[in-house]
């Protein structure tokens, strides 16, 4: 994996070094509400904000940490102290120098308050963060947290300017309309409903970078129109979700168009079917196993998502760390499903179930229809109910559903993106994307907790292999498929995807050529 990544970089770099300048036209979809990454973590905010802000580290395709605002780092033997040495000569876009005090403020004050994903981790594990001098920061943990080093990208622990936010109300700070970071591109303008323009940071700390003069993000709300924009050359890149899957094959075939599914390793999104395990019929493990046999997941990937995706084997994606393919399998077999239902002793027709539609586009409507049909075929009594994003979040957060779907990002390490969906301590009302299905197992709880504090990779692998086996056997969720995101780009764009965060990298080395 490392070898392949190095090779990729090695073959692309010479091309890039030949060209400088130009404007890269992209699509941001949907339009983000704001661009301050700490305050909003949606994917479009991430897409734009990752060019403006930076974290201490960046991550390769193999998810190994690489230097960002920190040029070197070390971890103490006991796994409790993380020391970072910062790059020299870094300034904020307003000219003020970047120092260790900014890092301390960001982690201890800013993110601890505003970042919904990072704050529970910091509040639980972080004992203190101090600036030993202007260029050295020390994080001290209360107990070991193995994936701590995975958290220093712009997705999570980004760095914000202390001189702007300290002592203010973060949400209403006027600078929120004019983001100031340390990244290779500076905010220039935002015409709401139309476009966001970033320009080259001439004082970027990496000399000679970035190559591009300007990046323009266009707002085009309609998917068919976005496909047209790409065909016309109004924009040079489409990323996953910009156009419907049905358009992707057609656009791939256009001469001069390149495509890749790389660059999503950090997210490794996985789609699951949630079954409310608090009440019949899904409180019975045999019924859940029957569901897995009743659904043809290969059909889902091939026909509903146009072959863009991969059937999942379990809760951990094949591109996330500690993945283990050796788990029980559920092949498509309605007969076996019926047999399991019989064995369970549950008369599933007596318990009408409603599939709460996942409101993110027509493919998800088709998925609900397909699953409804498949379950009816083995004897379930199924209806589909529609909702919108707000309604969905509310219902799932309050456990008010029978079954539904969702897709979640894994952020490289199971301790960040996977355990949150299964730990019984995460059965808390009020938020989606926790343990909303109500799965409870002291055994997996113990395995997850042990794995997240272990510092020995081999030991973690063993624990996570056990976890995967248990979660697949219990069908804690129905694991449907690994979402793939296809990035389409015109041949003149070089070095677009070079890391595990793909188009959410800072684009310092992206260039335009022939």
């Amino acid at each position, binding site marked *: 994996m490392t070898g392949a990544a190095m090779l990729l970089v090695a073959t692309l770099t010479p091309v890039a070094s030949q060209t400088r300048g130009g*404007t890269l036209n992209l699509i941001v979809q*949907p*339009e983000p*509400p*704001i661009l*301050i990454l700490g*305050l*909003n*973590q*949606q994917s479009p905010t991430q897409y734009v904000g990752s060019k403006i802000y930076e974290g201490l580290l960046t991550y390769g395709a193999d998810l190994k940490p690489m230097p960002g605002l920190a040029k070197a780092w070390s971890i103490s033997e006991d796994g409790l102290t993380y020391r970072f040495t910062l790059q020299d000569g870094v300034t904020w876009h307003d000219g003020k120098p970047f120092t260790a005090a900014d890092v301390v403020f960001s982690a201890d004050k800013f993110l601890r308050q505003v*970042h*919904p*994903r990072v*704050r*529970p981790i910091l509040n639980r594990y972080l004992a203190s963060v101090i600036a030993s001098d202007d260029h050295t920061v020390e994080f001290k943990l209360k107990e070991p947290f193995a994936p701590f080093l995975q958290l220093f990208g712009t997705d999570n622990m980004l760095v914000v300017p202390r001189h702007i936010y300290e002592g203010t109300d973060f*949400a*209403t700070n006027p600078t*929120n*309309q004019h983001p100031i970071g340390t990244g290779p591109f500076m905010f220039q303008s935002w*015409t*709401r*409903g*139309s*476009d966001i*323009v970033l320009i080259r940071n001439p004082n970027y700390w990496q000399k000679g970078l970035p190559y591009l003069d*300007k990046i*323009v993000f*266009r*707002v*085009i*709300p*309609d998917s*068919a*129109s976005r496909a*047209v*924009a790409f*065909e*016309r050359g*109004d924009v040079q890149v489409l990323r996953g979700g910009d156009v419907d899957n049905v358009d992707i094959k057609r656009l791939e075939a256009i001469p001069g168009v390149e495509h890749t599914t790389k660059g999503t390793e950090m997210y490794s999104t996985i789609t699951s079917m949630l079954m409310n395990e608090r009440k019949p019929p899904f409180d019975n493990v045999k019924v859940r196993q029957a569901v897995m046999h009743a659904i043809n997941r290969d059909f889902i990937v091939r026909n509903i998502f146009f072959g863009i995706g991969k059937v999942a084997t379990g809760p951990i994606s094949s591109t996330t760390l500690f993945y283990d393919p050796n788990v029980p399998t559920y092949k498509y077999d309605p007969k076996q499903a019926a047999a399991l239902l019989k064995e369970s002793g549950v008369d599933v027709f007596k318990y009408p179930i409603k599939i709460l539609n996942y409101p993110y586009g027509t493919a998800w409507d088709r998925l609900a229809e397909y699953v409804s049909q498949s379950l009816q075929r083995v004897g379930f009594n199924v209806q589909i109910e529609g*909702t*919108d*994003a*707000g*309604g*969905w*979040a*509310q*219902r799932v*957060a309050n456990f008010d559903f029978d079954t539904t779907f969702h897709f*979640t*990002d894994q952020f490289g390490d199971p301790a960040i993106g996977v355990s*949150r969906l299964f730990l019984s301590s*995460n059965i*808390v*009302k*009020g*938020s*989606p*994307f*926790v343990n909303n299905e109500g799965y409870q197992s002291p055994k997996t709880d113990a395995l997850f907790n042990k794995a997240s504090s272990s510092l020995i990779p081999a030991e973690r692998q063993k624990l996570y292999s056990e976890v995967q086996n248990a979660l697949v056997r219990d069908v804690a969720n129905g694991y449907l498929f690994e979402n793939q995101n296809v990035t389409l780009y015109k041949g003149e764009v070089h070095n677009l995807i070079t890391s595990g965060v793909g188009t959410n990298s800072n684009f310092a080395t992206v260039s335009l050529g022939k």
Partner: protein
Amino acid sequence: MSAGSPITGAAPAQAPKATPTLDHTPAQSVLPQRVPSMALARFILAKLVKGVLVVLCVVVVNFFLIRLAPGDPASIMAGESGSSDPNYVAQLRTQFGLDRPLPVQMATYVLGVVRFDWGFSYRMKLPVLQLILDRLPATLLLMGSAFVFSVLLGIFLGVIASRTRYTGRRRWLDSLIVGGALLLYATPLFWLSLLMIVLFSVELGWLPAFGMETVGAGLTGWSRVLDITTHLVLPTVSLGSFYMAMYVRLTRASMLEVMGMDFVRTARAKGVAAPAVIRRHVLRNALLPVVTFSGIQLGQLAGGAVLTETVFGWPGIGRLMFDALMQRDYQLLLGVFLLTSAMVVVFNMLTDVIYRVVDPRIAFEGGR
């Protein structure tokens, strides 16, 4: 458009009342008589008072109506970030003031509105009024051009169709216009828009496909006007086509009815030239239904053209409203409703005034 219905619903309530039937004695084909200014002022004042009350009612009703939708901004923001921290959701609710009793929230909002403080969009971290005013020019531009396009072309084609039909010469032109209007009337808007993009932007490359102006071109003066105009063509045609077809049919039907009346025959008998008969005698009397309908059209356009704005990436109020609705951005949504309902009230008032200019027989007293 469904989100706009509480507003646009106000339009037809007033319009039919004021529509006079066509079998009255026809209007004199001279300049309108001078309107007594006191009556006009009293008329407008009465309408204004009613209008303000209507808008206030709309605000209050909308306030409670949008709370009926499941979910709130805090749960949506938590959903988007993949949060696993209920404390965070509670913190957001407190920050947005959603933890206070509903009547208190409403009172705060209405008091704010009266003092021109339309609230704060916690999602976009900007005052609501600023967000709306940023989008207003684009909306007004598209609205105005679609309106002018549909009214002028609709009336023009309607007149031609009715004339050829009435005189019996070139009947095919009538059939062509009526057939075309029927086709446009029945064509789904988004489909027409996409086909126009494919033809004029992708295949022929004559017109830009999206946005309001060329991004980053830094144009000024006339070159900027020209740039915006070329961007305006496709959205205008796609937004205006449906109404244009309506005007063609309305004008044609109403013209044909008037053409058969005695005073038209009299005018012709006394030797008035044919174009003058059409312009001064027939069209003027046939216009009232068109005026009625244009009032309704303006009201609907004010609610935003969500579909057109979506397909063409036009940065108008319709998209702002749609996004605010999906994200339960209550204050922003209420702000858009407030503005659009105020616009509907104003357009209705204008329609009432125009009736009386076109047809002086309608009195100003009491606003009837």
